[in-house]
């Protein structure tokens, strides 16, 4: 545990990619394959599920440090990280120093002897075990332990970086390593060795390919698309669907559907998973899962799709009321052969050929835009996005291969401009993670007659400097407090951007907006000039 704790804090200490890469490499090379496997598991963001209850953990910490619940809650509001709060409180009591911290087991032994056996034990026994671990750990190690059992293990290294470090050790291309690690990777010494030797056969495992991601295209008014991107004919233009990005792996006997978050979707979308298509050999499609209105043959809203995916149990009823389709727009594997290195135009040709022989109403081919009229026509098409119920356009360079991750210049997403309203800051709460201790989570209101009604929360969009100055303003303009929430003078106005708006009985304002974020601070506007509920309802 010491080596892993050190790894955590060394990674946490630096914000330079080069150093992080070196730290990861040094760690992987110095520990056993078993420890490396578990470290990889946690660093990739996977977690030990259902180990202990968070409420129990708080209670054990309260027993250990002798502080009541309200004090733990106050500290948590300030620290913004539960694992860290509990570690700090327990240490203040136990005073275990770095040198006295005695947990000799390596990560893998620790997980298998101390953590996994917690599963299924009564909460009293779990508590005794955790408290006895805390008593033998310094603050840093206690913090890492708390992170391992509460999940949400984030240490400022991206999955891509971990993959890069491993690829360097194995001396393979990062894309190959990324593919091997897709899906549910099981942490074991054998699997780790297989990774490094490249034995894990890609095609049999049903692992998804890493998704190619697009950068947002941000163009200023005066900029010309042809100067920025070249001839329109070099590009393939598609609608940007508003659904769930997914990859469909089709083998002879099965269909495997992975979300972009690498979750298996088969259980949630049984009707897609059960379709076995008549086709030659295996193929893999990249596309979007959408809720579909078969009567009018148009896409339904994302919130309809959410209604369906949010359910634990997929009933026949919900399958009926929210039918689903897979809208394909790329081909990654054809006849069992990886075709990602072919050009976008070539992959498209093959995708169309494949679809000519596929017959299922649940599988659709996403259209491409006719390019007559060049960029002007494309720009005009983008403006029609809302009426076509899509988010905007996708621009894919015709000669580009299907990349791994986000690369600039080959795929662009050109979203329609968001809606904006000017709203008044009314409540604030301290944030989490790197925003801990700063009032960074805000609730905004708009006018309904002469009262302000809360209409959305937003967490992002301000620069660090702005956030700091809003934080200071909040501290000296608090009217009242409700637990961690500060009610502030309704004075500051911000321009809030959002993607769409819909009726909602759950919100006081009667409307809910999607992806609200702060566009800018309207220092020029007094609160009385903020927008009204009526003006937002007009967007419905």
């Amino acid at each position, binding site marked *: 545990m010491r080596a892993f704790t050190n790894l955590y804090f060394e990674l946490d200490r630096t*914000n330079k990619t080069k150093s992080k890469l070196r730290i990861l490499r040094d760690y992987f090379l110095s520990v056993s394959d078993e420890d490396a496997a578990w470290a990889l598991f946690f660093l990739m963001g996977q977690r030990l599920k259902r180990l202990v209850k968070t409420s129990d953990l708080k209670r054990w910490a309260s027993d250990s440090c002798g502080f009541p619940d309200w004090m733990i809650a106050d500290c948590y509001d*300030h620290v913004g990280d539960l694992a860290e709060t509990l570690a700090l409180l327990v240490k203040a009591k136990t005073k275990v120093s770095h040198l006295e911290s005695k947990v000799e087991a390596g990560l893998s032994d620790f997980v298998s002897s101390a953590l996994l056996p917690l599963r299924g034990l009564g909460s009293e026994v779990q508590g005794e075990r955790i408290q006895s671990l805390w008593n033998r750990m310094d603050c840093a190690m206690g913090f890492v332990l708390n992170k391992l059992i509460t999940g949400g293990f984030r240490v400022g290294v991206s999955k891509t970086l971990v993959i890069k470090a491993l690829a360097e050790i194995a001396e393979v291309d990062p894309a190959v390593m990324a593919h091997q690690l897709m899906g549910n990777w099981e942490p074991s010494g054998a699997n780790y060795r297989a990774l490094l030797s490249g034995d894990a056969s890609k095609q049999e495992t049903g692992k998804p390919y890493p998704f190619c991601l697009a950068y947002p295209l941000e163009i200023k008014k005066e900029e010309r698309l042809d100067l920025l991107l070249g001839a329109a004919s070099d590009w393939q233009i598609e609608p940007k669907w508003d659904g769930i990005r997914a990859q469909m792996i089709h083998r002879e006997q099965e269909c495997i559907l992975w979300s972009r978050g690498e979750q298996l979707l088969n259980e949630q979308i049984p009707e897609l998973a059960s379709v076995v298509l008549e086709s030659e050999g295996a193929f893999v499609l990249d596309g979007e899962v959408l809720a579909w209105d078969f009567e009018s043959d148009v896409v339904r809203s994302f919130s309809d799709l959410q209604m369906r995916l949010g359910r634990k149990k997929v009933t026949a009823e919900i399958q009926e009321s929210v039918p689903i389709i897979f809208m394909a727009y790329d081909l990654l594997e054809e006849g069992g052969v990886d075709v990602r290195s072919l050009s976008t135009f070539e992959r498209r040709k093959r995708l169309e050929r494949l679809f000519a022989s596929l017959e299922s109403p649940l599988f659709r081919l996403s259209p491409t835009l006719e390019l007559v009229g060049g960029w002007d026509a494309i720009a005009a098409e983008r403006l029609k996005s809302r009426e076509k119920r899509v988010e905007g356009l996708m621009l894919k360079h015709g000669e580009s291969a299907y990349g791994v991750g986000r690369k600039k210049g080959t795929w662009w997403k050109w979203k329609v401009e968001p809606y904006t309203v000017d709203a008044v800051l009314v409540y604030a709460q301290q944030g989490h993670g790197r925003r801990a201790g*700063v009032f960074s989570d805000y609730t905004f209101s708009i006018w309904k007659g002469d009262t302000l009604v809360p209409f959305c929360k937003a967490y992002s969009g301000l620069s660090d400097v702005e956030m700091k100055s809003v934080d200071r303003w909040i501290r000296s303009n608090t009217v009242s407090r409700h637990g961690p929430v500060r009610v502030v003078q309704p004075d500051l106005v911000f321009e809030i951007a959002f993607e769409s708006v819909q009726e909602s009985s759950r919100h006081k304002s009667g409307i809910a907006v999607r992806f609200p974020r702060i566009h800018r601070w309207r220092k020029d506007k007094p609160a009385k000039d903020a927008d009204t509920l009526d003006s937002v309802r007009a967007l419905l």
Partner: protein
Amino acid sequence: MSRTQTLVCLREEGLYCPAGDFFIDPWKPVQKALVTHGHSDHARPYMDAYLTSSSGLPIVRERVGRSAHIEGLDFGQTLKINGVQVSFHPAGHLLGSSQIRIEHKGFVCVVGGDYKLEEDRSCEAFECVPCDQFITESTFALPIYSWEPSDSVFQSINEWWRQNEEAGLTSVLFAYALGKAQRVLCGLDPSIGRIGVHGAVDIFNKHYLAAGYPIPETVRASRNTKEQFQGKGIIIAPGSTQNSPWLKQFGERSEAFVSGWMTVRGSRRRRGLDRGFVLSDHVDWKGILKAVEGTGAEFVGVTHGYADALVRWLKETEGKTAYELNTLYHAIASGEDEENGKELS
């Protein structure tokens, strides 16, 4: 409760003693200001007359201006102001920092100002002053704040500096220019390399040297001396210099902040620092409870910081009569502290 509100109370201008007709660390211009220490949220300009500790006087003068009318009172010496007995006692926060003891008709109130109990080679040690009413700060009044002995922190700082020296990096240590910077300077190991300071730190060093505190030899880090710090040495600078062109001239650096706030990972990560060293010139949770207990005070007024939690704890667990005093220390940070309104530790 009535006497506690009459001897020292809160006014629009600051903490006020009606019987003596004077203010303590006021934030608006008044006739007579008793000042606990030289940090700019406590020692503000434009008061008609100041009274502070003799050893803190040069620093307070640095803050409020050459022409200000300032008198000094030695620690422990008493003075009558309109029949109210006043004396200054070391607070252990920085050079000359004081608690102010106010006695009237047999009732004693001590205004703690900013204080700490930990050892500090750069200032007088905190003195426990028995009283009926104690007014305490609460900057770090949450039990997550629990300071390590300063020697072990200096050991870590020197170790970090030594490693940077070997790796050919300039070590930059951000510290509040008055108090923290000098405390850190007294803990550095000059055998590791050259020590540079930002001008804002340098201004105060001379007062520490004049008072006989062991500030090591330093060089003012500037355009003229930058060669001495490129890829080597350590520079002590205020946090506001992070990302500044002034700092960039020294080339590749490892940057660290030294502050009590560094206890929490979030505040370190937010600043994009390589390291955070936990060392504060404010009192931690246990220190507050110890100080309150030491004074024997029954009434405890809590100013700036995490007053809610402390007040509740003092009432429920320690059986004290505790209440919040809503002072403006920190909240309206002036000029140079703007960037680090919270960094006065």
